[in-house]
């Protein structure tokens, strides 16, 4: 019984940490401009639209976050093996991962922008200095919370995987959740506020992203400021629910049917969510779209 109560406590804590991680991850990737919306940022100068948006083309968010989280887990695990205090080890691992993230971000921005020289897109060193540090700050929050989740799984729950392997699994899940949930809000909404709502992105508008802000020229930090209100929390909710349900079904049902109880519970949760998703999609289409002629 005590085991289950501790398990439920860890489940709740991990779910809350995951919500923070998801929100920070999405905001980080939007400020840095990573993932599929970045293709428009990359395209804009080629269509004649010079801009001051960051261009963090490291890779898709899932592989990138797999690296940051795995790296933090691996370094933390190494420090733990050397007898360091757990919190200090996790913080040091996260700091190293954040530095690596920052270095990759700067090299991606410099590389992509320099390769666009033909189209007159300049490198803005003030963008490099101000935006990189903001993405690093958000990345620290996202990585730290995810590593703590992995650490709880490895030590309290007694997961058979070692910490770096858990880092691969949950880093990938974090990047995927942030990419799938948060990116449409940045890519389809924020970048194309100059288009009619619900119009999608017509071919003729490709690369014509919004480049001016309320005052002056838009910076990537303005994008983070905007998406942090909806895209970020939605991603946090998504990743939080993933972690929560994953742990909840394991803690409660793994003792039934020699472990198959947890598998069946997982399948039932997926089916319930499919029904909810279908209902929400139908409701949204009936109320908001498809876009009709005015």
């Amino acid at each position, binding site marked *: 019984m005590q085991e289950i109560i501790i398990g439920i406590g860890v489940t709740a804590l991990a779910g809350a940490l995951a919500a923070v991680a998801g929100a920070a991850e999405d905001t980080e990737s939007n400020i840095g401009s990573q993932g599929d919306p970045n293709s428009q940022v*990359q395209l804009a100068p080629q269509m*004649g639209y*010079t*801009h*001051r948006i960051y261009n963090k*083309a*490291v*890779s*898709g968010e899932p*592989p*990138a976050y*797999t*690296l940051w989280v*795995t*790296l933090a*887990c*691996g*370094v933390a*695990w*190494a420090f733990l*093996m*050397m007898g360091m205090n757990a919190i200090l080890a996790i913080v040091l691992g996260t700091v*190293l991962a954040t530095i*690596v993230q920052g*270095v*990759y971000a700067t*090299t*991606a921005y*410099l*590389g*992509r*922008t*320099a*390769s*666009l*020289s*033909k*189209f*007159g*897109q*300049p*490198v*803005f*060193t*003030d963008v490099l200095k101000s935006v990189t540090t903001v993405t690093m700050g958000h990345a620290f929050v996202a990585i730290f919370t995810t590593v703590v989740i992995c650490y709880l799984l490895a030590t309290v729950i007694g997961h058979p*995987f*070692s*910490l*770096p*392997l858990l*880092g*691969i699994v949950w880093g990938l899940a974090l990047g995927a959740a942030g990419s799938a949930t948060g990116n449409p809000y940045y890519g389809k909404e924020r970048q194309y506020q100059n288009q009619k709502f619900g119009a999608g992105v017509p071919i003729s508008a490709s690369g014509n992203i919004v*480049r001016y802000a309320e005052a*002056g*020229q838009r910076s990537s930090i303005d994008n983070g400021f905007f998406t942090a209100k909806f895209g970020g929390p939605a991603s946090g909710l998504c990743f939080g629910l993933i972690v929560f349900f994953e742990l909840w079904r394991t803690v409660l049902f793994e003792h039934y049917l020699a472990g198959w109880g947890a598998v069946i519970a997982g399948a039932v949760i997926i089916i319930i969510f499919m029904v909810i998703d279908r209902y929400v999609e139908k409701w949204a289409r009936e109320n908001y779209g498809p876009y009709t002629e005015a």
Partner: protein
Amino acid sequence: MSVKVEASHGGIPHGKIAAAGIIIALVSLYIAVIGHEVLGFDYFAFFGGIAAIGALIWGNSAIKRLCSYGIGAGVPSAGMLAFGSGLFGMFLGIAIGAMTSVWIIPVAVLVIALITGVILGWIANTVLNMKIPVMIQSLAELAAVGALTTLGLRTVAIGGLELEAGFVFVAVGFIAVAFMLGAIALQHPFNACLGPGETQDRTNMLVIECGFLSMIIMAVISFVAVSAVAGWISLVIAIIGWAVSYKKYIALSKRDAAAWLDAKPFVDAEEE
């Protein structure tokens, strides 16, 4: 059948870069073996990192060649594929080394990974019907790059190439860190420098930078398994190498950029 689009013109041909990469990787690995087997210390662990950089230079050129066939979005995937297929060669090569001699490991890993890649390339071209002319050769090269890079980073972490020394590497999961570090370091340089203004020397400098950056992390982790002196040697060399290459990369970016502005607005074409 895909159409070939050149990523960047001119520069050193792929064959020369590949040859240089293989030689750097194999020689460095054998220096690490000499240090461990003949001289009996693990201070040469950092040569594993140099081997990884050599392999990454080769791999970057191979990715560039493969991706000139219009699979731009597949650059990060190519990195993952390289390391996924390369791990098989690495494990089997090390296992063969355990049965025979540690001196065989670098060459065995290279050969087995090349064979794995050829099989995967054949499947991609005939079974999946991709029909990309350089597919078989490129996947073979990428698998070998993945195997050599993981082997190199593993050497940094544990100080030698033997099977026994590597148990901590696999059991504790440090191999996951090496896998991700290598896979992102392999795909990042070409992915980051992608575009009409890509230049070979800038991209290659970024490969070296990514290699040293990965080596820094493996050097930090290596303190678990190697002697403190060896760990510090690896760490200091990695940090110096990274700082120099990062600085050079920024200088090359400044050279290639259209303009280098600090706190100035952009000027629109219509406004001019």
